């Protein structure tokens, strides 16, 4: 029986991890909602952002947090470009399948180029505050993890406000719910879709920075992330941003707690077990809307 302190520590770690998952899964959900695209390259962009943060720190000593000034707009533009220049070229009839292959190809490209530029060696940013920690009710929380969690919370809140309070957010939600109807309302859905992709990738830039603070990165690391993220968006209900966020927190917590009795490797399987169970018994997901039914 694990001690209470260990349990509490794991709950805290799970919460911190879940926050990052939530941010990344919301980006993935956004793409799916907008275009029915499963964006395999999402986590490759995540790693790319982390590499950029590492590289800037390594070369110029810039704090990773500052790298976001560059990466977030850059990724936004890349997202718009990706949607407008590539995804719209695909035939609507085969869009779902072919877009998976296309984004898969992009993921391979990014992985290959990262490997070419920085080799397969694992990298890690050495921060002055890397091993510092705070004490919270007897448990210890690393400062870097707290910063990463804070970044995720800020980004998610911004996304929420953007979707709920702005005119663009309204157009985006309308496009997600019913593209044709949105068009009838006079929304330029192509433009909205492009911007939606940009925002999705911008979340990857934020997530990548958060990631680079506390973990090692290497080019093929993105496969390690895409699996859990895909599981999260299915469990949350494809296309539902709040669903993805809740599923992310729940599964992140489950992973962290299951590590105590099962060990790290087996604990990771919780994502896939949840994925299969969801598809077998409740294919529309647990928090999802109607989108999920047909996909």
């Amino acid at each position: 029986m694990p001690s209470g302190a260990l349990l509490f520590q794991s709950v805290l770690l799970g919460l911190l991890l879940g926050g990052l998952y939530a941010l990344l899964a919301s980006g993935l959900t956004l793409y799916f909602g907008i275009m029915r695209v499963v964006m395999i390259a999402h986590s490759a962009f995540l790693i790319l952002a982390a590499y950029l943060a590492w590289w800037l720190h390594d070369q110029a000593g810039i704090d990773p947090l500052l790298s976001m000034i560059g990466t977030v707009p850059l990724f936004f533009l890349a997202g718009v470009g990706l949607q407008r220049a590539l995804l719209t070229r695909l035939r609507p009839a085969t869009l779902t399948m072919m877009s998976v292959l296309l984004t898969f190809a992009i993921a391979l490209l990014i992985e290959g180029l990262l490997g070419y530029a920085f080799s397969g060696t694992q990298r890690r940013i050495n921060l002055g505050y890397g091993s510092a920690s705070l004490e919270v009710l007897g448990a210890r929380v690393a400062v870097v993890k707290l910063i990463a969690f804070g970044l995720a919370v800020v980004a998610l809140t911004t996304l929420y406000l953007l979707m709920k309070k702005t005119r663009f957010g309204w157009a985006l939600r309308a496009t997600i719910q019913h593209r044709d109807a949105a068009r009838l309302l006079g929304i330029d859905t192509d433009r909205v879709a492009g911007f939606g992709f940009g925002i999705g990738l911008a979340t990857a830039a934020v997530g990548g920075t958060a990631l680079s603070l506390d973990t090692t990165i290497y080019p093929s690391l993105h496969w390690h992330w895409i699996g859990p993220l895909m599981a999260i968006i299915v469990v949350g209900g494809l296309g539902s941003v709040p669903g993805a966020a809740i599923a992310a927190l729940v599964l992140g917590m489950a992973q962290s707690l299951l590590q105590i009795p099962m060990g790290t490797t087996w604990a990771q399987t919780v994502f896939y077990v949840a994925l299969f169970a969801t598809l077998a018994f409740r294919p529309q997901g647990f928090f999802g809307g109607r989108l999920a039914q047909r996909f």
Partner: protein
Amino acid sequence: MLNASRALKAGAILLLAAGILAFPSLAPNPYILSVGVLVLNYAALSTSWNFVGGFTGYISLGHGALAGLGAYGTGLLVAKGGLPPFLALFAGATLVAALAVPIGFAALRVRGASFVIVSISLVLILLLIFQSWASVTGGSRGLVVPRPFDLSRPEHHRVFYYLFAGLLALALLVWWLIDRSRFGLGLKSIREDEDKAEALGTATYAYKLIVFVVSAFFTALTGGLYALWFGDLDPVFQFSILTGSYLVLMALLGGVRQLFGPVVGAIIVGTALEYFKGAYGDTPLHLVATGLLLALVVLFMPDGVLPAVADLFKRFDRTQSSSIREVTASELRDERLKKAEGAAR
């Protein structure tokens, strides 16, 4: 005219078969022969993949995992179960086919996207399981599969070359049989328009599930044969996401609706991969090349090389000029949608 093109086709097929069969005698050294075995392995895998991809249009990126399961199934049955190698091969493949039923049940219940997600997840979860469950699978220490025959290495390659060729022929035969059957027609109608197929009375879910299981069986069979040939299994390489993507690339490049599409794709991509890794092996550029090629095929040649070549022949063949081509339906539909859009603004 029809007879001429049919004769051409038959000639090409005979040439391909003769080339494949004669290869071992022509190979200058055992290394080239081993590359040949590898290419045939890819051809068989990619043809097995094409049972799902070609007929139903569902793209699986997880077939590498099914091959890995077949390899480990066979390997474990031989190494730990003490079964004779080729009995283990079929038993292993049958087990994988049985396992494909619940996997397909979850993956195919809903459309498109979930299937892809499940297929990728399959690779990732099996990698975790086979790494962690070391007491059974050997974990990262790997699993050594005993050699089925006591042969010198070049002879070993030669024997397995023909075994792979036989397996490929069997897979092609079954694919061809399904292609011309009513079951195959139903599958193809799912690929073309799943709603429409269902509205016409095709039990789409059952169709997809059956063909997925058939595909899993052949994939596992090929994986198992690979295990007997290669001898060393390691989860990292058996459950690699790259294997699946190579299969997709091969099938897509050759042409998924053609019987020999995946074979042609496997010969092209398999040889290129081997050459590329030999020539530029010190960089991860083969990932870049694979990614680029995949993107180009998806964007510009989703029907593959074989149809493109066939079109080229048709263009030379003046007598078969198209008389019926007016405005196609899809063009018309696009036009209508655009009009609706314009009206909405």
